[in-house]
């Protein structure tokens, strides 16, 4: 089993306050992990630390496979660009993606016919969906998703769960944070409250 | 000493006001830069010690106090 992520004794300090210490986690291919914890327990911070965005005040060692996708609270989309343009330039990291792939991804998230609509004209939920369409385009093995179920309706949540499971079956792994209890087969849970300092 | 009298040193042949005011301003500014953090440090140290004593007073009630 390939290991995609390993946290050894990871702690987080904000200012002089210790949020948590001694987090141990190994994520292997095919595993689906949910990070839970009360507000302010450091879920988002941990995820950002794993992605390499915020390493100030992080102790311990984090080994993360380089083939990684991070989706934070913010979708990373430009409201002046169309859905297609957004995905073309944003998801690609510079690699040309065929337009058919983009249209397919948009169709998967239920946005058929919106390909050339400027993002700013879509509703908040639809915009979230455009962001999630990245998951259908990504070739990364480890997905780090911060609150992916926020502002998504019931249909959308089911669709997203399916995609997460599919990714795990294909040899990837997912770590996501969520407040909602998620009933997915084979879900593993890491509760940050247990590590609170 | 170059000057003959205190008065001569103060007036400096007409330049006294400039020279002395420059020195006074400099030393006031620098003294402020020194005293301000020193006082703040002393205040902080006092607050920390007080907090320590408070905790030391509370601890025996909970059982197993230790001397600071």
């Amino acid at each position, binding site marked *: 089993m390939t290991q995609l992520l390993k946290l050894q004794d990871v702690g987080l300090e904000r200012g002089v306050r210790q949020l948590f210490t001694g987090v141990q986690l190994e994520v292997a291919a095919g595993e689906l992990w949910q990070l839970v914890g009360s507000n302010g327990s450091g879920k988002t911070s941990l995820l950002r630390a794993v*992605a*390499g*965005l*915020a*390493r*100030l005040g992080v102790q311990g060692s984090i080994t993360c496979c380089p083939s*990684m996708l*991070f989706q*934070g*609270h*913010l*979708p*990373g*989309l*430009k*409201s*002046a*660009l169309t859905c297609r*343009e957004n995905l073309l*330039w*944003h998801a*690609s*990291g*510079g*690699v*040309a993606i065929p337009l058919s792939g983009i249209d397919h991804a948009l169709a998967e998230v239920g946005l058929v016919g919106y390909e050339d609509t*400027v993002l700013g004209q879509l509703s908040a939920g639809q915009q979230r969906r455009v962001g999630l369409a990245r998951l259908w385009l990504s070739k990364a093995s480890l997905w780090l998703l911060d609150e992916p179920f926020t502002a998504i309706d019931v249909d959308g949540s089911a669709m997203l769960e399916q995609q997460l499971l599919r990714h795990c079956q294909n040899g990837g792994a997912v770590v996501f944070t969520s407040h909602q209890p998620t009933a997915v087969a084979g879900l593993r849970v890491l509760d940050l409250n247990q590590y609170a300092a | 000493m170059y000057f003959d009298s205190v008065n001569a040193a103060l007036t400096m042949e007409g330049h006294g006001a400039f020279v002395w005011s420059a020195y006074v301003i400099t030393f006031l500014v620098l003294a402020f830069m020194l005293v301000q953090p020193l006082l703040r440090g002393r205040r902080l140290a006092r607050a920390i010690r007080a907090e320590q004593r408070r905790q030391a007073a509370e601890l025996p009630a909970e059982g197993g106090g230790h001397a600071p």
Partner: protein
Amino acid sequence: MQPDLLKFLGFQAQRHLRGALRRPGDIVNPLVFFLMVVTLFPLGLGPDPDVLADLAPGIVWVVALLSSLLVSGRLFQSDFEDGTLEQLALAPHPLALSVLAEIASHWLLSGVVLALVSPVFALMLNMPGQAIPVLMASLLLGTLCLSLFGAIGAALTVGLRRGGVLLSLLIIPLTVPVLIFGTSAVREAVLGYDPGSWLALLGALSLVGLVVAPIAAAAGLRISLEA
């Protein structure tokens, strides 16, 4: 497959340009600001053509500096607010490269446009005709410097709530050489002498900026993401 750097640069620049062109107000507003402030000077100083011509190089350059500060403060704002910055920081390419693309497109839409319309301001301020090409050239190079330095300040203040005035505090001291070289070039040209030395210095400054600014701004952006 590793896509090459130039293609990535092109991608990023295209993204910015397309986005900006859909909101032409962002391009036009600084120009209108420039026009209005230049109008204020004759109102304040009196309409004497000789006085204006004397002061014109300084006026145009100070106003160019201010309007550039005004715009470059928001250089990374939208990218920070919508999360694009996070994605760029995680992209396989150096963040400095994305920053460079962003600065270049920003310069194309602000500095280059300003340089192109600057003859109008020169005429308003009674500047002699022979100075106009030099004015344009100096603004072309100088606004590149201003965008580069502005990017550093913008990167360091992008995560802060009250970034605007702070940015000016950080950047104005750094832009002193640009102002001096720029006005000197124009003044030499107005007097009918060779402004080559000053333009060369502006060029050298932009080259130094091209090396330093993307690296410093990228570092600043990573810090802003941490905070």
